[in-house]
C-alpha cells in the first residue's frame, strides 16, 4: 500500500507525460513480443530436452516378437521335462566352470563404471549398486536410466561401459555396435499387472481375449458379458471402461503387447490387431500417462480405469490387480513366484535372449518383463573388464537375493548359470 498522495502524484505525472509513457509502453510490448518470438522456440526446445531426459522410458523398438509365436502350442508337459533335463545338464557343466574360476575378489576392484538404459530394472540396479559399494568400496558404478533405446544407442556409440535393455537389439543394428561383439546377461524379471480401479470389485479375473477386447475398446462397459464370463459370481458395475496406457515409448508396452500378440494375435486366431511394439496405435480417446507411475496415477484417479503397470509401481500406489488366465487355462495372480515359474518355462535362446510372456506351465503368470545388461566382450582396459565382470557376477549371485525386497523376481538358477557363463565372455 502506497500513501495516497504518492499515488496521486503518480497519476498526475501520468496525464502530463502520457504520450511519452504510451510510446514507452508500446515499445515495451514490441520488445516483449520479440523476446517471446525468440523465447518460444528457445523454451520449447529446452522443455523438450528436459522432458526427454526425465522421460521414464523403458523401452525397445525391437520387433522381435517371434519368440513365443514360434513355440508350438501343443507342447505342455513333455517340453517342460526336456528343458528341465537340458537345464540340469547345462547347470552341471556350468557349475564345473564356475567352480574352477576363482571367486571374484570384489574388494580388489577399482575405477568407475558408467551405464545407462532401461528404467524398468533401475530400482533393482540402484539397490544392488548401493549394496555392492560395501563389498567393493574402490569401484563406483553409475546407472543413469534413460530408457532401453538410449541404453542401446549409448553402448553402440561406446559412451557407456554397459547398458540395460528390456528388448533385443535389432538384427540390422548389430553391425552398428562400434565395440564389436556383445553379450546379453539376463539380470532380473518382474510381472506386469493388469491394475484397475473399480470400487466394490476386490477380485477380478481376466482372460487374454477379454484384455484384448478391453484395450481395443471393442467393449466399453465393465458389466460386458465377456468380462462377466471370466468372473462367475461377481457383480460388476456398469461403469465405463477407461483404458490407460503409456504416453512414452516403453518396454512395458512392448512386453504387454507381445503377450497379447502371442495369446490373441492374428497367428493365434485371436482378436488383437494392434501388433506389438514400444508404442502402439491405441484407439482414440484412451488415456495415457508418462512412465509406470504416470499410468498408476491415472488409474488411482479414475473410476473404471484399467492399465498395465509393473508390480512395484502397482504396489506403491495400492492398486488392485487382476488374475490373468495363462496358457494352461488357469487364472494366476501376478506374484514373484508365478513370474519365476514362467521363467522356468521360457524358451531361452543360445544368446540368452528370451520372451517371458505367455509361458507354458500351470503356475506361470502370463504377462512379465525380462531385462538384460549388454556389454562388449572385448574391453580395451583389463581393469574395466574385471570391474564389469565383478559387478555382473554380484548381480547374479548375492544381488539376486535383493530382488524380492524391491518387488522383482530372481532368475531361476538354471538361467543364472547360463548368465554367469556369458559374463565370463567379457574380457580384455
Amino acid at each position: 500500500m502506497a500513501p495516497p498522495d504518492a499515488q496521486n502524484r503518480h497519476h498526475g505525472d501520468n496525464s502530463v507525460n502520457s504520450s511519452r509513457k504510451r510510446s514507452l509502453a508500446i515499445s515495451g510490448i514490441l520488445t516483449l513480443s520479440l523476446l517471446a518470438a525468440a523465447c518460444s522456440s528457445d523454451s520449447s526446445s529446452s522443455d523438450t530436452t528436459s522432458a526427454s531426459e526425465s522421460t521414464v522410458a523403458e523401452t525397445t523398438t525391437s520387433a522381435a516378437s517371434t519368440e513365443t509365436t514360434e513355440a508350438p502350442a501343443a507342447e505342455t508337459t513333455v517340453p517342460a521335462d526336456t528343458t528341465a533335463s537340458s537345464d540340469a545338464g547345462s547347470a552341471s557343466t556350468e557349475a564345473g566352470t564356475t567352480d574352477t574360476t576363482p571367486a571374484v575378489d570384489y574388494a580388489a576392484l577399482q575405477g568407475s563404471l558408467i551405464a545407462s538404459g532401461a528404467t524398468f530394472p533401475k530400482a533393482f540396479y540402484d539397490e544392488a549398486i548401493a549394496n555392492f559399494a560395501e563389498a567393493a568400496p574402490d569401484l563406483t558404478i553409475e546407472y543413469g536410466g534413460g530408457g532401453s533405446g538410449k541404453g542401446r544407442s549409448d553402448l553402440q556409440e561406446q559412451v557407456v561401459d554397459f547398458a540395460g535393455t528390456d528388448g533385443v537389439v535389432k538384427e540390422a543394428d548389430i553391425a552398428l555396435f562400434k565395440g564389436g561383439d556383445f553379450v546379453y546377461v539376463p539380470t532380473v524379471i518382474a510381472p506386469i499387472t493388469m491394475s484397475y480401479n473399480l470400487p466394490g470389485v476386490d477380485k477380478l479375473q481376466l482372460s487374454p481375449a477379454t484384455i484384448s477386447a478391453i484395450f481395443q475398446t471393442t467393449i466399453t462397459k465393465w458389466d460386458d458379458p465377456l468380462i462377466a464370463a471370466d468372473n462367475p459370481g461377481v457383480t460388476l458395475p456398469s461403469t465405463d471402461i477407461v483404458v490407460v496406457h503409456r504416453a512414452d515409448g516403453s518396454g512395458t508396452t512392448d512386453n504387454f503387447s507381445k503377450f497379447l500378440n502371442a495369446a490373441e494375435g492374428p497367428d493365434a486366431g485371436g482378436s488383437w490387431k494392434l501388433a506389438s511394439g514400444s508404442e502402439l496405435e491405441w484407439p482414440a480417446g484412451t488415456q495415457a500417462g508418462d512412465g509406470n507411475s504416470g499410468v498408476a496415477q491415472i488409474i488411482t484417479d479414475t473410476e473404471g480405469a484399467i492399465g498395465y503397470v509393473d508390480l512395484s509401481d502397482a504396489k506403491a500406489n495400492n492398486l488392485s490387480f487382476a488374475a490373468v488366465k495363462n496358457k494352461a487355462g488357469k487364472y494366476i495372480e501376478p506374484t514373484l513366484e508365478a513370474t519365476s515359474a514362467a521363467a522356468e518355462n521360457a524358451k531361452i535362446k543360445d544368446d540368452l535372449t528370451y520372451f517371458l510372456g505367455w509361458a507354458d506351465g500351470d503356475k506361470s503368470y502370463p504377462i512379465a518383463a525380462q531385462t538384460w545388461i549388454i556389454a562388449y566382450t572385448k574391453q580395451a582396459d583389463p581393469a574395466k573388464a574385471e570391474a564389469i565382470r565383478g559387478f555382473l557376477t554380484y548381480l547374479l549371485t548375492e544381488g539376486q537375493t535383493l530382488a524380492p525386497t524391491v518387488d522383482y523376481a530372481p532368475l531361476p538358477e538354471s538361467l543364472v548359470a547360463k548368465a554367469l557363463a556369458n559374463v565370463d565372455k567379457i574380457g580384455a
Partner: protein
Amino acid sequence: MALTISDLRSKRQVGDRVFRSATLAGGAAILLILALIAYTITNKSTLIFRTAGLDFFTEKRWAPSADKPVFGALSFIFGTAVTATIAIVLAVPVSLGLALFTTQVAPKWLKKPLVALTDMVAVVPSVVFGLWGIIYLAPKLIGFFKNMHNWFGDWPILGSLFGKASAGRTFMTAGLILAVMITPIITSIAREVIETTPQTDCDGALALGATRWEMITGAVIPHSAGGTVGGVMLGLGRAMGETIAAALVIGSSPTITANLFSAGDSLPSVIAFQWGEATSAEKRSALIAMGLTLFVLTLLVNFAATAVVSRAMRRMQGAS
C-alpha cells in the same frame, strides 16, 4: 588536472562506441540464434518431408512402431489448435476484466496487491501447473465433465462439444490449465496498454456526463484495443507452445473429435514424451518436423501480434 573539451569528447566517443557495439552484438546474437535454430530444425526435418511429403500434415495416423511406420501430424496440430482456442476463449474475458478492474475500478489500496498477485501467477513454473493439473484438477474435473455432458449433451452444438466423458485428462483440462497460465500475460499487457489512455480523454468523457462504464467503452477501449489484441496474441503463442503443463494433462492419445472431454495430444506434448525413445531416423525427423511446425506457427502468431500492435501505435500517434 584540467581536461580540454577535445579530451572529453574523445572519451565520450569511446564510451559511445563501446555501448553501440555491445547493443549491436546483443541484438545480432538474438537474430543469429533464431536463424540457427530455424536452420537446424529445418535441416533435420527434411527426411520426413522427403519420405512423407505434405501428407505429413494431412495424415491422421501416428504409428511409429508399425511394420510400415506412418507419421502424421494432423491430430497433434488439431490438439494444439483446440487447446489454444479453449485457453484463449476462457482467458480473454477474465484478463480484460481484471485489467479494467485494476486500472479503472479498483480502489487504490487494492490496485497494487492485485497487480502483484497477477504477476505472481505468471512466474509459477509451468511444470507446477502441470502437477497441480494431474494431482488435483484432472481427478476433480471428471464429475464436472459428466455433469456437463448430462446437462448439455442433447443441445445442438454444445452437445457435440460436451460429449461423453469418462476420464480427467482431456482437451478441456489442458485448455483450462493453459487459460490459467496465459491469463497473467494478457492481463499485464492489457493493463499497461489501458494505462496509456490519456487522462484527459477519461476526464473529458466523465465531464461530458458519461458514467464510468460509458467512459470505459467510449474512451479507454477504443484507445487500447490494438495493444490488447497484441497481448491476446502473445498469450495465444504461449498457449500453443506450452509443453509440459499441457503434456501432463492432455491424455496423450492422438485423437480428432469435436468432443472436448476426450483425451487428445498436442505438438509439444508428443515431442516431449516420445523423443526419448525415438531411435529410428524417420521418427526423429518426424518429431523435429513437428517442432518446426510449432516454431513456424508461434512465429506467425507473434509476427501478427507485433504487426497489430505497431499499427495500433501508428493510429494512436496520429490521433494525439
